[in-house]
């Protein structure tokens, strides 16, 4: 399909617009989903930490650490939760889910902090860790590590799906634009051919010219105007073959 020169810029403009939409919506989605998912996960992590903290009180007071471990193991099965550990009020690690050992970064951190902190643990990934005091901190603190790489993966998946859909729309839209442009450009092409024929004096009223002259649009009006101008005496005098006839005679 040959694109008429007149509309080439328009087509590229349309294409550019599509890409602009694609990029801007992607960026907006990334920001929105990432923010909302992270907030959602952090809220869930805090809820889980609170549940563990509330459930741990009796267990901790009984000093039954195997029951405590059993409790956190159940929560650690939740997909986004990558680790849980419980520290005593004195900072001692009472139970945890780390394999093969507690990362140095965590050993070095403040054991009873309840602030949400970003962690990058070598070999494990990136995490947001939330803390929740047990018995107002008198019995220790529960720490829950949320896997932010998982959030990033989910965002990537959502954006990937959105971009896939938009890309399909871009291709369909681009091809449709070419088709529409060519459809719109065809009467112009016919008009150009008709004008050339008129100028040469070999434009008849049959065939493609008749269809063009019958059109009720700008192309039809222009064709009829060209025909009218061509039939005028001034036009006959100025016609190239008339000039050549005179000179030949």
């Amino acid at each position, binding site marked *: 399909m040959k694109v008429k020169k007149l509309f080439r810029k328009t087509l590229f403009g349309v294409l550019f617009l599509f890409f602009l939409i694609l990029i801007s919506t992607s960026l907006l989605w990334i920001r929105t989903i990432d923010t909302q998912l992270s907030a959602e996960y952090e809220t869930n992590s805090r809820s889980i930490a609170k549940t563990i903290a509330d459930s741990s009180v*009796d267990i901790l007071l*009984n000093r*039954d*650490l*195997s*029951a*405590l*471990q*059993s409790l956190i*193991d159940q929560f650690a099965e939740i997909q986004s939760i990558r680790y849980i550990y419980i520290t005593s009020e004195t900072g001692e690690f009472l*139970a945890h*889910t*780390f*394999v*093969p*050992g507690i990362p140095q970064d965590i050993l070095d951190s403040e054991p009873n902090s309840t602030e949400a902190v970003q962690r990058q643990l070598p070999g494990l990934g990136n995490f947001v860790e939330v803390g929740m005091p047990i018995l107002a901190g008198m019995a220790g603190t529960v720490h829950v590590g949320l896997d932010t790489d998982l959030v990033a993966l989910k965002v990537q998946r959502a954006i990937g799906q959105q971009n896939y859909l938009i890309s399909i729309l871009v291709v369909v839209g681009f091809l449709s634009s070419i088709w529409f442009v060519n459809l719109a450009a065809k009467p112009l092409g016919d008009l150009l051919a008709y004008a050339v024929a008129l100028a040469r004096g070999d434009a008849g009223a049959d065939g493609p010219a008749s269809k063009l002259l019958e059109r009720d649009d700008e192309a039809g009006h222009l064709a009829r105007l060209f025909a009218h101008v061509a039939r005028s005496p001034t036009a006959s005098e100025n016609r190239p073959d008339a000039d050549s006839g005179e000179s030949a005679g």
Partner: protein
Amino acid sequence: MLQTALAGCVLSPAAKAAGAVQGGAGPAEARSAKSLSRPSARGRQDEIVLGVSAAFSGPSQGLGIELYRGASAYFEHVNRAGGVGGRRIVLKTYDDGYQPDPSVQNTRTLMLEDRVFLLFGYVGTPTVTRVLPLLKKFQDENIYLFFPFTGAQPQREPPYGDFAFNLRASYRQETGGLVDNFVRIGRRRIAVFYQADAYGRSGWEGVKRALERHGLDLAGEATYRRGQQFTSSMREQVEILKRGSPDAVICVGSYAACAAFARDAVDFGLEGGSGPGVPMANLSFVGSENLLKLLTDGQEDSRRYTELLVNSQVVPSYHDTSIPAVQEYREMMQRYDPQPPQDLVTEPYTPFPHSFVSLEGFLNAKLMVEILRRVGSDPKRSDLEQAVFSVRNFDLGIGEMVSFGPDRRQGLQSVYYTVVDDDRFVTLDDWEAELG
């Protein structure tokens, strides 16, 4: 599901030929955690049905199988002699693969559908700790868990201690004994290698408490994920423990992982503050024979992996035939040759003629029968607790009297220590000479 009337449990051809009857409710059906449909199998009037959920598959299958075999030998003996009050003892058996969720599901089925008389011979801490709340929920039904193969605290203490009866010593007693002995011979830097779950935590806590009594702290700790095979690498764990230069390592795990760790500790040069060679202690749950088999099978020089192993046991050595119960056990294991529950055991497994685990199963069954006799001719669940409490200074035949009471829900207190000699675990008499 496998319902086995032990007058004819899954018996060897020899035992069948000896007159055993294939019993139970129809053909044995395997119903593991993978689940198969099964018929209702409530106990008949001439049966007492005991519900079992244990590891018959996976890397810890040896524990479930050996415990079952030991118990089967004694129940078989009793059933052949007419059962308890004319009732045969039947084991309703499920596989949980040493995983908590299937264990809970199996227990629910045993209690609500199979309506077993009691629960018996469960295997593992992560499984049992998850089952205990179920027992509490149905406490009005008086369903008790008897003699689980775990030394953890949850079934020994409130709020769940009232729903279980233990025979074996606890992990605290095992780890406490190991630590005391190591410290006594000058090995004061003690590290722990443990399973990252309730079992591992129970052992970890035991070691930590025992060290605190001596004014010491852990020299290091490393964990592994439950379900590891012998082929797994434990190099990372070895490297972590190396940093603490331990004089001894106490392993709280299952046989496959502990064998892998013992192998890698030697191969990757775990050396302690006392120089090359760090004793590696394992708890009774490890399954000593299974551990030893992995470390010796196909090894040219297996001694370097086993020479510093020291395993605690909660039953005496089955090699010591001067002990009456050991004689009895060996005789019945030979006579009845109990086989693994064949429909549950789908992976290849060669049973041991004798093992610490099957001896424990045997002693569990022996005490269980005594309790069932004390319940009377018309057994009711509600009478079970009083029947257990009536056991005072009962002689199981191992030289330690068994007593139960409202404040005493663990029958035995003794811990034994063993080392490898001539490719078998033998009693450790002199710590100083062996490991000092």
